């Protein structure tokens, strides 16, 4: 009787879910202690109301962006500690030595590293930066659907908390970052790890899908008057193509994870090795999402670099139109290449040839972009500020990564290096060199616009040096090891003379760790010395686009008066006109409507979190409550017509006046 009630209340949750291995126990205890400390600090400083009013319920895209980036930085530390463990294990586990973790834990560690870095670091930084600057770049007050934006963020946060809960209860999935069945099916993996992986990605993925819709409508509907599509900053174009990819790719992920979840939860047979299930179907579906996903991550980074190169070369971006065409070319082609992820699975020569050629063709539009950036720099007055350093790192790293990618697009070569560390090196080459450097560059570039002061330049440059040196020390050995036959996800090897290379790779990771340390130091020092680096002009880099025409930090309403755009690089043109003596007319203020704060976003995401938790542990009543919670909250929101507040023209005038007196605005 009692056990029946217990299993009704708690499902399959019990004490054995707690971690057993010392390394994991340490991590779990660390997370729990930090969590308790954070909550205690909030009570001690009586900051709950402040947190609720200013952050949790906010519908201001800029603040939502800041929260995305905080989550992403926390997850970067988590994912990077996994990377350190992988490198330590592989450097030590040669011959008779067995390294620092067991084989089973090692599988969890590399799965966690991949999953967290892609879904919660790269995606988080991307959505964070887009939220920070997209409306400002477009001359808009806000995104198209501010409430939806809050729901998206909190779903992302809910997914993040859910997947980290597995560290404390139940363990991570050992199935790799894409969870290939039948390994991830119930028959081979009955524990909760895979369920954590499924439901966490499902929840965060739906958040990403909603964000994609939101940003696309923002770009199509919220541009300032006069800003035709061909006058948009190229970053907005890159976000537009990214959202198209999200809209076509993420529903596939939703369906795929849904089917894998149904297999595990309801005993279905989509991808099982028996009852007619077809694991190959999963591989096709997951890569039909997964390949576009890497372009989802990289395209906005391309956009960021385009803005940065133009600004710091003090020139118009070279080849604007070809940039746009290249973005669309990459978008289209990225859907035609998914099969290159399984050349070796017996699809036959014709199919492999088609997908090999399609893959190589992507190098053409990408090359167009690289040359455009270089031509933009040509004869420019280049300022090698930190964002530009990240860009230089990117060009070198990404080009090498691209070349090794074209190499692997040859099916015959892929048969040789498939599933080897060569692939791991290539993948990190483009993702770190492209995505991570791109978002770091963007963060440094737009930081003053959001916080009102610049980041310390010197520490930023040192961090960039550490990353680039560390990167090559860490991943060049992996290229060599891959060619020598070392496979990925290797937790032990005999003494084939590989150990020296693995140790060098480990040293590289430590150099990157130093880079991350310097970045944290940079953030700390910059906050400490914020008076010294304060941005009083609103235009610290002599910028070209609209976001620099408003004061720093940008006010909640972004623009006191929505600007009218006549040219590309509108702010630059305004400044040029001013130099020629064309003074702008006095602004005409109008009433401004802004969205009211709403706590319903976090309630929806909180319900989703509980639902995911219930499904993972088979606590059905919790899952049922979660469904009702989401439905009730959505209906409540849909029945509320009073969602905005007004700033009157007079108030707006008085808010805007100080900046005019300082001569900040043109």
């Amino acid at each position, binding site marked *: 009787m009692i056990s029946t009630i217990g299993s009704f209340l708690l499902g399959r949750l019990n004490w054995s879910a707690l971690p057993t291995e010392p390394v994991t126990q340490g991590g779990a205890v660390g997370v729990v202690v930090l969590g308790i400390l954070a909550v205690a600090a909030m009570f001690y400083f009586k900051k709950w109301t402040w947190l609720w009013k200013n952050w949790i319920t906010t519908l201001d895209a800029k603040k939502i962006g800041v929260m995305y980036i905080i989550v992403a930085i926390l997850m970067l530390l988590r994912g990077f500690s996994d990377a350190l463990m992988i490198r330590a294990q592989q450097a030590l586990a040669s011959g008779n030595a067995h390294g620092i973790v067991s084989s089973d834990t090692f599988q969890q560690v590399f799965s966690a590293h991949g999953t967290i870095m892609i879904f919660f670091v790269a995606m988080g930084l991307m959505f964070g930066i887009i939220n920070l600057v997209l409306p400002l770049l477009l001359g808009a007050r806000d995104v198209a659907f501010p409430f939806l934006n809050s729901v998206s963020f909190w779903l992302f946060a809910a997914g993040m908390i859910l997947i980290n809960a597995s560290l404390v209860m139940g363990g991570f999935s050992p199935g790799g970052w894409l969870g290939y069945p039948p390994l991830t099916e119930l028959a081979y993996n009955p524990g909760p790890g895979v369920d954590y992986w499924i439901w966490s990605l499902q929840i965060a993925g739906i958040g990403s899908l909603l964000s994609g819709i939101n940003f696309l409508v923002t770009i199509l509907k919220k541009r300032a008057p006069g800003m035709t599509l061909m006058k948009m900053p190229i970053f907005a174009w890159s976000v537009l193509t990214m959202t198209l990819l999200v809209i076509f790719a993420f529903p596939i992920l939703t369906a795929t994870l849904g089917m894998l979840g*149904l297999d595990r939860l309801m005993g279905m047979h989509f991808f099982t090795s028996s009852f007619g299930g077809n694991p190959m179907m999963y591989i096709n579906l997951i890569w039909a999402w997964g390949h576009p996903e890497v372009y989802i991550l990289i395209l906005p980074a391309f956009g960021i670099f385009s803005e940065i190169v133009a600004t710091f070369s003090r020139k118009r971006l070279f080849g604007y139109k070809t940039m746009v065409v290249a973005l669309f070319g990459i978008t289209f082609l990225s859907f035609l290449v998914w099969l290159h992820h399984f050349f070796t699975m017996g699809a036959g020569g014709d199919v492999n040839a088609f997908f090999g050629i399609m893959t190589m063709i992507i190098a053409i539009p990408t090359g167009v972009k690289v040359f455009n950036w270089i031509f933009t720099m040509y004869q420019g007055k280049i300022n090698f500020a930190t964002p530009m350093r990240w860009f230089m790192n990117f060009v070198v790293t990404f080009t090498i990564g691209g070349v090794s990618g074209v190499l692997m697009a040859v099916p015959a070569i892929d048969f040789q290096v498939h599933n080897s560390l060569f692939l791991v090196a290539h993948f990190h080459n483009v993702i770190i060199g492209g995505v991570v450097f791109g978002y770091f560059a963007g963060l440094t570039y737009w930081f003053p616009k959001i916080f009102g002061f610049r980041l310390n330049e010197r520490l930023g440059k040192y961090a960039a040096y550490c990353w680039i040196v560390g990167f090559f020390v860490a991943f060049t050995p992996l290229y060599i090891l891959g060619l020598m036959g070392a496979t990925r996800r290797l937790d032990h090897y005999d003494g084939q003379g590989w150990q020296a290379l693995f140790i060098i790779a480990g040293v590289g990771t430590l150099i990157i760790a130093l880079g991350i340390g310097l970045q944290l130091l940079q953030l700390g020092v910059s906050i400490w010395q914020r008076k010294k680096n304060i941005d009083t002009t609103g235009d610290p880099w002599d910028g070209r686009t609209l976001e620099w025409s408003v004061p720093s930090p940008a006010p909640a309403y972004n623009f006191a008066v929505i600007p009218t755009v006549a040219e590309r690089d509108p702010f630059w043109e305004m400044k040029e006109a001013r130099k020629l003596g064309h003074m702008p007319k006095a602004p005409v203020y109008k009433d401004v409507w802004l969205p009211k704060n709403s706590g319903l976003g976090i309630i929806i995401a909180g319900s989703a979190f509980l639902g995911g938790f219930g499904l993972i542990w088979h606590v059905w009543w919790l899952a049922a409550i979660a469904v009702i919670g989401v439905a009730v909250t959505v209906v409540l929101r849909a029945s509320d017509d009073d969602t905005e507040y007004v700033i009157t023209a007079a108030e707006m005038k008085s808010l805007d006046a100080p900046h005019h007196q300082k001569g900040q605005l043109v």
Partner: protein
Amino acid sequence: MSELVMSNQAEKSMNNEQNLTKSLGFWIYLMTDCVLFASLFATYVILRGSTYGGPSGHDVFNMPAVFVETILLLTSSFTCGLAVVMAKINYKQAALVFLTLTFVFGAGFLTMELSEFSNLVAAGHSWQASAFLSAFFTLVGTHGLHISVGLLWIAVMIFQVMKRGFTDGVLRRLTLFALFWHFLDIIWIFIFTIVYLMGVA
């Protein structure tokens, strides 16, 4: 006076702009739903023959019942369209009647679908029996889940129309609901063709 008219017009154009933005967002959402269904359709087509020695579609589909289901759903779409027309001419009573009819036909469709499911399970052909049946239950069930969401949405709409009449917000939500309901019709046509007609052929 003229100032008042001006501000009314300004407000109207603002609302109009908002409606356009929201309906564009909803269209894009429907597109993502299309991709979701496309993934499920693709999987179904691949797994259709994987019956693992169990029954195929030919053995288990009850075509007369499916035909009645189809008629119910298409009729509900028609009444839904009428409800929107009545709302646009501000004829509250008629709109409520047609919304209720839409709900009744939709609920009838869902009941028939659930009874088809429970008959299959009772005959030993549950979603656990083969990959084909897993794919069948998931594809058709996902459509059914959408219908359930739609029914909840109609209920909310009926309540809002009764309580508030046709405010801008209510009209907008009603139009978006109609889009959603017609979209489910289109998906059902595909299910009817690819799952049922091609299943028994």
